[in-house]
């Protein structure tokens, strides 16, 4: 086979892969947009659900989903940043480093329903918290922790060594170098990871369906131990009433809202990555 032909075939393969991936994505998104648009309106996103979701909107579901993931971010981000700094700056033992990698990748590989079961057993049954949105946030926080740790670690660890040494050579101690040099330089990468983690967390159903959500009657929670309504669990419940065409229609609408929220997180992550791309001299 001639060199040129090989080259040509490889190019065709790459292009068709790209085309196929884009096609699947477009098909999915356009179906949701096509079906969802018929029910999405200003009222749909500003009114609470009525008649078990067959009428009304998804206001409390949007609120509940955002509350869960924002709290998860507040809980998980400092922990992830601390872990990443420890891993990058203090952990010198190669064996423990490898062990920590295994643990983090392992945590990342656990199916999300396991997190739900774990939360159900530990919090709801053993600690007797009942169905609580805060427990849901803790579980989501644990679930996105590996993504956050890995991106923050990558971002901090890739800062060239002479930045650390320049700080230390000015008589700064390690704490000052970490907080004044490394965190400001690495925070954008860590925030990108956070947004990607949140984009994943907001769409998750399995980890929160047993422990944090209620289908009907949940509004704005008055305490940490009350359930909330969320978009993914709402979609699940509506889709199960498939005989009711009004409910099914609203499931499409809720899906569109959810996709839009995920898209917002992803686009802001992309924006952060481009806007604050660290221009360092290597």
């Amino acid at each position: 086979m001639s060199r040129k032909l090989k080259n040509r075939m490889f190019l065709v393969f790459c292009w068709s892969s790209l085309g196929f991936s884009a096609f699947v994505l477009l098909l999915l998104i356009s179906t949701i947009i096509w079906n969802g648009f018929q029910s999405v309106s200003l009222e749909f996103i500003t009114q609470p659900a009525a008649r078990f979701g067959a009428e009304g909107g998804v206001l409390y579901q949007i609120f509940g989903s955002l509350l869960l993931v924002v709290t998860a971010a507040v809980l998980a981000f400092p922990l992830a940043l601390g872990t990443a700094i420890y891993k990058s700056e203090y952990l010198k033992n190669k064996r423990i480093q490898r062990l920590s990698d295994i643990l983090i990748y392992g945590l990342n590989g656990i199916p999300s329903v396991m997190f739900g079961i774990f939360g159900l057993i530990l919090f709801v049954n053993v600690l007797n918290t009942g169905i609580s949105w805060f427990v849901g946030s803790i579980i989501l926080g644990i679930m996105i922790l590996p993504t956050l740790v890995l991106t923050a670690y990558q971002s901090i660890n890739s800062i060239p060594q002479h930045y650390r040494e320049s700080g230390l050579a000015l008589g700064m101690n390690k704490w000052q170098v970490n907080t004044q040099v490394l965190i400001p330089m690495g925070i954008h990468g860590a925030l990108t990871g956070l947004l990607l983690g949140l984009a994943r967390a907001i769409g998750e159903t399995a980890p929160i369906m047993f422990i944090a959500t209620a289908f009907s009657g949940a509004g704005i929670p008055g305490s940490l131990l009350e359930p909330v309504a969320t978009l993914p669990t709402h979609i699940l419940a509506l889709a199960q009433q498939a005989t009711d065409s009004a409910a099914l229609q609203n499931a499409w609408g809720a899906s569109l809202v959810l996709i839009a929220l995920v898209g917002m997180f992803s686009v802001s992550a992309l924006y952060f990555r481009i806007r604050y791309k660290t221009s360092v001299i290597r």
Partner: protein
Amino acid sequence: MNKTASNLKIYPQNRPGPNCFRVKNFSVRISNTLILKKLNLSIERNMIHCIMGPSGAGKSTLIRCFNRISDETDQLSTDGKIFYKGQNIFGRSQDTSELRRNVGMVFQKPAVFPKSIRENVLMGVQYHKKLNRVEKLQLAEEKLKAVSLWNEVSHRLDEPARSLSAGQQQRLCLARTLAVEPDVILLDEPTSALDPVSAREVENLMLRLKNDYTIVFVTHNIQQAYRIADHVTFMCEGKIIESGTKDQIFSRPNHQQTKNYLNEDFCDC
């Protein structure tokens, strides 16, 4: 130029003895490879001491030990002593932050922090000294003038330091080091990442600063050593081949290796 130089003399220092550093039987290993082999060397005050040699000679390893930034290198172990002001800096009681306040360092590549030009100058000193707003402004101006950067940046002190050219960034790094008011400045090939004009500017700065500071300058560039050095140490393969005044090393070197290196720019030790 003279005025700036005299401005710098506002920090009189007690300087016991003529030697600044005394290196005694000093060896360095990095993961069991012997990098520096039983070195003995004296570095005198208020001079430019150039450490010259081919790459891989151990120049950088040696200079990085003078402020113990070598601690940051993995699996590096030392043997022997380096005295600074009569005290072994590898002794147990040595506070490395304190040492680095007195022994500043500028690296091969400029590493300006993602902050404004002014904040970069004040980055180190703000942790060592309480300064009010006015003092901070004065200090920033004084140090930027000392590195001849003031005229170029005085109108944009609050702009990100990243916006400067590489040569300007390197001078900013030097200003930042001067702001801590060290006694010694270590420079590890500070001009190798710069264009020739910027490199000359840094060299001229060194010549001005040597009245007030002890300067240790690592270079692989023979011409550069000839232009600025008072004292030259020639290193090769982790050993000090020869050390002496500039005239002595360049006009009548004692060792054949030094002659070879000076004449042919290569070393067969």
